[in-house]
């Protein structure tokens, strides 16, 4: 529980730091309501809608209400999916308001010791340091390979963990070996006529847990005609920090990445994780108050491009692509769509694969409930949202659910596992399926 002193501190900082013009920009028309997953799933509770949350933030600034536990609860339950932004005729930057508010609340409230320790461990020591990321994930890899996983599963030791984590343990991909994660390529030439020079943003989770997908991404870029540089000094994008009320740390990470990329003479900086990409394109906002950085941040953000977007630009979809006959559906990454406005490109790529019948699911752009670490910290709401998502997925009869972000990928795998559908359905990252489709044809032509 928050004490009076904490509340006062939070209220004062709300008055000082919240962007009041942006709060006033919301004219309360309610156009955001139907787009908000938590509003829908809470049975239309205005307290869990974007309009309601903005009203609360403004009321805290105005001194009409205290920033009590219920206000914090409402902000915590927000997925941060930003589905409210593209439907807002007034153009309110809800994501920015949410980040500001969460930052103030988290920096000024005393959390319980275990939570504080866990946050500190993850936000300060693990994610910002790729070496530690590798160390940590290779522990998981050891767990998977050593037989420990089997023992743990058999002994029922896992039952001590919440259900979501237990299922998550099952769907986590096989982690690469530590030596593989440590020796990543830093330069890759184009395999066809060179059209663009790009830098690859490899990410923290993507370059460890999802290393194979990163390899597939650079392969695709090589096939599409890109020379690729992968700067070694880059690190985690800081999105998890930014969304969880750790803005200062996110800023440090942003600066590190800007430094890592700014000297490379490249056309684009390519990402393959919607969540990271949306945070990277927002670095200019994150650093807007730092005179030495604002301009450099802007130059950086202008180069950010999702892998699907550059593939379309380089006409990759006009190449021969083929898969076994199957129905495919696509689950939008919220941040790729709402943050980077990239949603047609993945669909266009999938539709251009021969053998594929693309079926759009209902509400494909509604969040799957993954939302960073939301599915672990807000498990109940997350699973409710996932249930709806799985209903829609099942209706398409798809064999493959394609995603464009690691969080969504894990969540969809979780959904498949929970529904007991792992025999007939799989979730994949879009680059993995595109590479397969491309190499299928490539092998065909070479064998001819």
């Amino acid at each position: 529980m928050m004490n009076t002193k904490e509340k006062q501190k939070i209220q004062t900082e709300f008055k000082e730091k919240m962007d009041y013009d942006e709060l006033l920009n919301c004219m309360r028309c309610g156009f955001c309501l139907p787009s908000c997953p938590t509003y829908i799933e809470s049975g239309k509770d205005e307290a869990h809608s974007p309009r309601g949350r903005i009203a609360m933030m403004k009321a805290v600034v105005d001194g009409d209400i205290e920033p009590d536990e219920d206000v914090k609860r409402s902000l915590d339950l927000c997925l941060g999916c930003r589905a409210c932004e593209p439907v807002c005729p007034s153009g309110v930057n809800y994501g920015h308001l949410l980040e500001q508010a969460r930052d103030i609340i988290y920096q000024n409230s005393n959390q319980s010791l275990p939570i504080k320790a866990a946050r500190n461990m993850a936000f300060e020591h693990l994610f910002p340091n790729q070496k530690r990321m590798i160390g940590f994930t290779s522990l998981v890899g050891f767990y998977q390979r050593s037989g420990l996983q089997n023992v743990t599963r058999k002994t029922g030791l896992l039952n001590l963990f919440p259900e979501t984590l237990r299922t998550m343990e099952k769907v986590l991909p096989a982690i690469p070996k530590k030596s593989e994660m440590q020796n990543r390529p830093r330069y890759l030439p184009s395999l066809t006529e060179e059209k663009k020079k790009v830098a690859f943003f490899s990410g923290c989770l993507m370059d460890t847990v999802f290393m194979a997908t990163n390899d597939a991404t650079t392969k695709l870029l090589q096939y599409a005609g890109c020379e690729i540089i992968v700067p070694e000094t880059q690190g985690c994008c800081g999105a998890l920090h930014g969304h969880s009320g750790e803005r200062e740390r996110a800023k440090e990470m942003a600066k590190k990445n800007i430094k890592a990329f700014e000297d490379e003479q490249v056309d684009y900086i390519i990402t393959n994780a919607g969540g990271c990409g949306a945070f990277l394109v927002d670095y200019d906002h994150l650093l807007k108050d730092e005179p030495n950085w604002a301009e450099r941040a802007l130059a950086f953000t202008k180069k950010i491009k999702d892998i699907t977007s550059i593939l379309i630009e380089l006409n990759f979809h006009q190449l021969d692509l083929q898969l076994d006959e199957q129905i495919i559906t696509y689950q939008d990454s919220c941040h790729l769509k709402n943050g980077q406005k990239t949603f047609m490109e993945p669909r266009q790529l999938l539709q251009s694969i021969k053998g594929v019948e693309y079926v759009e699911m209902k509400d494909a752009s509604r969040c799957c409930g993954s939302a960073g670490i939301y599915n672990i910290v807000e498990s109940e709401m997350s699973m409710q949202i996932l249930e709806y998502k799985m209903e829609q997925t099942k209706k398409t009869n798809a064999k493959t659910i394609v995603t464009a972000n690691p969080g969504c990928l894990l969540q969809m795998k979780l959904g498949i596992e929970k529904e007991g559908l792992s025999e007939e359905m799989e979730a994949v990252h879009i680059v993995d399926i595109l590479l397969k489709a491309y190499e299928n044809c490539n092998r065909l032509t070479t064998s001819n």
Partner: protein
Amino acid sequence: MFTEKIKENLKQIVGSKNVDFKKSSLLVYSYDATPQFQSLPDAIVSPRNTNEVSQVVKLCNDNRIPIVPRGSGTNLSAGTTPLEGGIVLLFKHMDQILDIDEENLTITTQPGIITQDLIHEVEARGLFYPPDPSSMKISQIGGNINENSGGLRGLKYGVTRDYVLGLEIVLPNGEIIRTGGKLAKDVAGYDLTRLFVGSEGTLGIITEATLKLIPKPETKKTMLALYQNIDAAARSVSAIISNRIVPATLEFLDQPTLQVVEDFAQIGLPTEVKAVLLIEQDGPEVVVQQDMQQIAQICEENHAVEVSLAKTAEEAEGLTTARRSALSALARLKPTTILEDATVPRSEIANMVKAIENIAKKYDVTICTFGHAGDGNLHPTCLTDVRNTEEIERVELAFEDIFHKAIGLGGTITGEHGVGAMKSAYLHLKVGEAGVEAMQQIKNAFDPNNIMNPGKIFAKSERKRVVVSS
């Protein structure tokens, strides 16, 4: 007044899950889409059926507690702002369609259903429910009935009132009555159905409604006519009507509105012209074709610089959806947007547009205008900033002038948004002191304790606007 005992009683009636006293919850139900009005209620109550509504109302009546029925809170006259506290009543558990009768062409529904969901359900059966307020994707049918909402199709098809056949109502004393029915004709006594439509929640709680449906028109075509002169656009509207053509939709947007809407919707609207008319006609294909040709010709005769038909249904849909976002899109320009819906006979539309322009100049305020030109229902919207009190005063004076002008042209102070708290000080302009008095007597007869949405329709004092800071 709001004692622990009453709280307990409420919990007993609707279950403790359906009563909310948390400060943050009260805050998020303290407003609707109307700027400058905000006031905290004492409780949020979500009954599960008519019987529970009746018990809640009875409890309120016995204890003189205000009760405000609320849909999705999109209304624009502060109609659902709980100005005197009390209970905000939600219908989230009462949102089911009860019956679609394809023999009588009616739909019977609970009040909490979203307007657009209802429209989709009936259209899937080849039927049509025309009232389409701009907020239909969010608004609830109960709110539409209480506000007698209009919409883009009002010109040809009328407004909500024209489709309500029967109601189930909980009166302020807790009694449950049923009015009308699946009937084309019914003159048994006073027409309480019509009285309750548009009563803004001041007479009772609507818990069920039977609505009229019509066959879905075969085809629809959508057209944009562009003008370099606002007056020419307005004259085209009158010319179309006087040529005996009644389009389904005839919307007007001025240049600043076009620019912000395009900024949001990004569908390639012409932003370099001074005004456009968005025109739709529906019906049998031959008739639609003929009407559209004739309309195009009339627009050109009235100096439209370009007239173009939407090529696909998607393009047409994009245009009307964009139009529906106009008010909220205007909020991009200034922190506060105050809109009115003064309405004049359609023949006076050109005069009204001109008058609005002059009034804006006179008070040195920015007014953008869009709206349902075809039925004389304009939405002059003032862009301002609540923090600038001096300008806000000028804005209010400008609107007062606009009301007087509308009345002078044979119009009204509000065409479709309702009086609420926002226009209560001006009601007498339209209906006269005796008219207000007659309405007040009706109100007293139904609700002698004044528990139903108090502070609405009837002004409390001489103050022009009942501005309640939270």
